[in-house]
């Protein structure tokens, strides 16, 4: 069923792109690549690894592994409004409703045999404990080999060495399964692509900082989190280039000035995944999300001569996974660079890592005089959505800002 869904998506988008060969169509190209990834995951003839969010997808790709973080599936089920039955399945088997719905949806899918079976599993201890626990459940359920990358919280030399050594171990673990050693040449190409994508990403984010911003409320939704799945590939580079072209085009043609931008907003953590017209609502009220907290490049270029240490540094450097002082510093820097007027923190139900710091994040914004709206919402499970309440809060917040 899912394979057909992705195949149809690939076909439909390809047809549309063929009708407009000269167009930039960044978002379409991006969705096309994601659909192709989905198709590969469900094709049953690839070597599949289910992973934690911060896994090194470039390194895994260089080793011929089709890999993806499981939250991607949770988000997809939510956005296609097919998660309901999976939530119920997970809850009936004892997964508490207090848990994160990204993971609950995926556990339901595992129990209902609706997830592609992995060849092995690579968990990451960042960003969250809950995510890693779910990965262990997967390994237990599928009876597949399990590898953990422990990502230390502090950026120290010992921490970097420790993670680099684990990454090297991981390549041996993968080789054991594929019977193919890591090809330095392929890794070199992947890291080159990763660096090219990173450079373009920085340029994209710099363009987004323009006032008025050429982005719209939907364009860069959860972009950094998802694009890491393909940054080590030529397709990833091409997508990033298309997004850069799109933003440049909008600026050159003056599109960015035509959209209303009374209020510039920052969105904290991830977006709401199910259809909920918050973007349209913000549009109507003249507000624009110009930056998402997770859309940033916080790492140095990868060094092909020192790949494991480079990747280790990159994995540890994500401010969201570090202690909250670092996370707040990063948010404050972004707030200044993007000249925001306010921020929305969707306190995703069940997320101890991200929204567990609600009060500290609010204080961090207060310290730089930026108002923040804490929305108590489940970003994945729409069953308990109090739509009217959320709408009233957002409207009142924007009234207050203007």
């Amino acid at each position, binding site marked *: 069923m899912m394979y057909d869904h992705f195949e149809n998506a690939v076909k439909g988008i390809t047809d549309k792109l063929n009708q407009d060969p000269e167009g930039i169509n960044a978002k379409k190209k991006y969705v096309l690549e994601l659909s192709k990834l989905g198709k590969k995951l469900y094709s049953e003839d690839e070597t599949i690894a289910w992973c934690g969010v911060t896994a090194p997808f470039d390194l895994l790709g260089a080793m011929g592994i089709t890999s993806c973080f499981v939250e991607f599936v949770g988000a997809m089920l939510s956005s296609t409004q097919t998660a309901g039955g999976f939530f119920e399945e997970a809850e*009936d088997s004892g997964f508490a409703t207090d848990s994160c719905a990204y993971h609950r949806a995926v556990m339901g899918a595992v129990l209902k045999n609706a997830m592609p079976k992995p060849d092995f599993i690579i968990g990451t201890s960042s960003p969250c404990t809950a995510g890693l626990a779910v990965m262990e459940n997967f390994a237990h359920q599928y009876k597949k080999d399990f590898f953990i990358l422990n990502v230390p919280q502090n950026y120290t030399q010992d921490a970097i060495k420790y993670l680099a050594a684990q990454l090297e171990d991981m390549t041996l673990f993968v080789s054991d399964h594929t019977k193919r050693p890591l090809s330095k040449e392929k890794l070199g190409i992947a890291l080159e692509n990763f660096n090219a994508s990173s450079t373009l990403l920085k340029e994209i984010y710099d363009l987004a900082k323009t006032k008025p911003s050429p982005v719209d409320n939907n364009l860069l939704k959860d972009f950094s989190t998802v694009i890491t799945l393909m940054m080590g590939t030529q397709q990833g580079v091409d997508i990033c280039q298309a997004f850069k072209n799109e933003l440049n085009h909008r600026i050159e043609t003056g599109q960015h000035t035509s959209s209303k931008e009374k209020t510039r907003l920052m969105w904290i953590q991830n977006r709401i995944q199910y259809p909920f017209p918050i973007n349209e609502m913000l549009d109507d009220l003249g507000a624009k999300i110009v930056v998402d907290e997770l859309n940033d490049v916080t790492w140095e270029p990868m060094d092909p001569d020192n790949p494991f240490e480079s990747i280790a540094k990159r994995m540890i450097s994500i401010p969201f996974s570090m202690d909250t002082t670092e996370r707040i510093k990063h948010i404050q820097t972004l707030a200044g660079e993007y000249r925001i007027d306010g921020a929305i923190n969707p306190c995703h139900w069940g997320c101890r890592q991200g929204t567990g710091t609600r009060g500290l994040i609010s204080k961090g914004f207060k310290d730089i005089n930026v108002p923040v709206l804490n929305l108590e919402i489940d970003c994945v499970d729409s069953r308990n959505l109090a739509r009217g309440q959320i709408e009233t809060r957002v409207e009142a917040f924007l009234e207050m800002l203007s």
Partner: protein
Amino acid sequence: MIFLGIDIGSLSCDAVLIDEEKNILASSVILTGAKNIESIARAKKNVLDAAGIMEKDIRSIIATGYGRARVKEKDAAVTEITCHAKGIKHVIPETRILIDIGGQDSKAMRLDPDGNVVDFAMNDKCAAGTGRFLEAMARALEVDITELGDLDKGATSDLVLSSMCTVFAESEVISLIACGTEQKEIAKGLNRSIAARTNSLVKRVARNIDGLTVSMSGGVARNKGVVKAIAESMNLEKINTPETPDIIGALGAAIIGFEKIYG
């Protein structure tokens, strides 16, 4: 010899007298009210008067329900879970899954052929889907609680209430009324919500209920709409309900008293 079972629930205080043949001699269901010691005395008097029996003839008193510790003259206190299982075994012996929705909590039990509990699950501490919840909903719909059971007749929409918290559900019902939604559709929506929650409780004790007889006890079993919705949600043709579902706990208590003496 006579055996008395008293079930002091949050909403009602029930008493049952049985004889040595386990025949029910008398039963009483009254509101517990704020002073449960008085209700216990009244319920006891009711059954003694109805059966024409003196207090001294009672061989044993077993108390159950959340107020079981408050029955001073009891020989023993046994939880309502064990008592409901024992009671249902007497009236519907083939029961293997028992749903008991009472005033403040709902329970699902899996029973062995002898009526022993082999697993059970209780709802969280909130009142969602319980008698109290239905009382609040009846209030919001401005009907008497006894009318609620038939209120969903003829409903055709697939409305489901999203909020199961008593407070939020009440406001959801009020806003549905404000939007002009028909009473019967709201009632059906309510029943579906309770059914979904109950179904999930049952799944915690038995993932697969194929071939198992499902019965329901407790005051809410009188609500035909809820019972039907639960049966539908579990793909069952019917759920068995005893004639007097509210006294099953007290009946079970009385039987336990009998068995303690006669084995």
